[in-house]
């Protein structure tokens, strides 16, 4: 319908003025909700995401509980007003798939065997979508788990690498996702050096894929540092209040 915008300008910068390896402005906050056991707000540019954690808590119905570990239940959901065209509140196939890959990413990090017969519930709400909602959601979920005091092997930072106008770029936004050639979201747990989420929508050569992973790791490490600082800040604040 609309014309394809210039994704890489003549000066090598991106449509919004970023360098290829530059993240959008990122904001994060933990402990933002009253009811949840843990919560976090995360913003990657125009993408705004809230995550809440309830649990470990009892499973209903009980026969679903596992005798040797906690269940993880995870829902990635978009608010109807978060997208350009209103999104029906019923879960789409895309939301069902993303809930699964985010759950699996978190399963690889949470010490679920510490809480047999319980469930740890992770709810992610995308309030405004501008590209990278699953990766921002994963970051928020990880922070909310930490805020809830759920023991984990590591934090995970999510970030997407894209290929736009032939160039590999970090942390793509919606325009770059729509008009670019590839979108590769990853979730990276920096301290233990593990990729816990990895998808690719798009076409890459072998070399581009490997370079993309390198770029994503670099971006994730920056976000990971911010996450640590955010939790540290909260921890200090709590200490001060005590």
């Amino acid at each position, binding site marked *: *319908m*609309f014309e394809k915008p210039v994704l890489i300008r003549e000066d090598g910068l991106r449509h919004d003025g970023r360098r290829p390896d530059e993240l959008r402005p990122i*904001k994060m*906050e933990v402990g*933002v*909700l*009253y*009811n*949840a056991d843990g*919560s976090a*707000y995360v*913003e990657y540019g*125009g993408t*705004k995401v*809230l*995550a*809440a954690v*309830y649990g470990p*808590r009892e499973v209903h119905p009980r026969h679903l509980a596992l005798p040797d570990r906690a269940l993880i239940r995870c*829902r990635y*959901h978009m*608010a*109807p*007003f*978060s*997208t*350009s*065209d*209103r999104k029906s*509140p*019923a*879960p789409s196939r895309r939301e069902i798939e993303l809930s699964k890959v985010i759950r699996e990413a978190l399963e690889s990090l949470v010490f679920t065997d510490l809480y047999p017969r319980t469930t740890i*519930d992770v*709810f*992610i*709400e995308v*309030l*405004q*979508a*501008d590209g990278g909602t699953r990766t921002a959601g994963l970051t928020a979920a990880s922070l909310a788990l930490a805020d809830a005091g759920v023991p984990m092997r590591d934090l995970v930072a999510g970030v997407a690498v894209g290929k736009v106008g032939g160039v590999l770029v970090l942390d793509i936004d919606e325009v770059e996702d729509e008009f670019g050639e590839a979108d590769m979201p990853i979730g990276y747990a920096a301290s233990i050096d593990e990729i816990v989420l990895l998808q690719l929508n798009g076409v890459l050569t072998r070399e581009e894929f490997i370079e993309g992973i390198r770029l994503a790791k670099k971006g994730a490490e920056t976000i990971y540092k911010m996450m640590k600082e955010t939790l540290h800040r909260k921890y200090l604040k709590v200490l001060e209040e005590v």
Partner: protein
Amino acid sequence: MSITPTKQPVIPRIKKETIRKLLRRGERIDGRRFEEYRPIKAYINVVPKAEGSALVRLGNTIVMTGVKLEVGTPFPDRPGEGVLQVNAEFVPLASPTFEPGPPDEFAIEAARVVDRCLREPKAVKLDELVIIPGKKVWLVFNDIYLLDHDGNIIDAGMMSSMLALNNARIPSIVSIEGDNIVIDKKVKEKPLGINVNVVAVTIGLIDEYILVDPTLEEELVLDSKITIGIDENNRVVGIQKTGMRGIKPSTLENIVDIALKKGVELHRVLGEVLNNPQQYSKTLAEIMK
């Protein structure tokens, strides 16, 4: 089928007694006076990608509303009007008792009460939303999104809806060819027309006491609750009684007078935000700090 709720958080008997004992002394458990609202914080344009948006904090309760405008067809019996659709989602993030799934009877009731309070006094100028008469109109989706539930969802949902509707801008129409309408959501034109502003005042009843703006803890011990919609001309524009006890007709008069008084207060809050839109336009990152 509506079923007696069985999954609500259990309030220990002793807590109930405490609440009641305090009431007999003229006190509420959070220290408020009987007719006092919790602190209200209201913000608009919190998700600028939506055509309109607002967020209201009522004590610990947080409700967001996003308004989206889409091109669609009018109701056959209302060819000269746009369509307003009010929806409420009680997402599981907001409370330990909520489950994922389609709206339950509580969410549906909340949406329908807000809907009626907007529809009956013709709060939104639906007649200005016609693109091609009888064929194409603007559909206004008012999505109420509960983010944190500490009681009195409807008053917060009504206020965030009213603010989001006031905040809404109609997207630009790029071209009309036959029935084919191209719009550009990135360009927003004139505001959605509002005829009259509405607030909702919810009052809880327990024993002989009348409590304005009950918290969740209070809601769980109330005999019944009554929500009264009030427009800026002090008219009653909607009522919903809920809860599992009756109300004496003689106390209704008292209730409506309190509601009208508190309605003035809420309209003042609403007016403050609407008159100072820039001051109350906040980003979510600022609000969540």
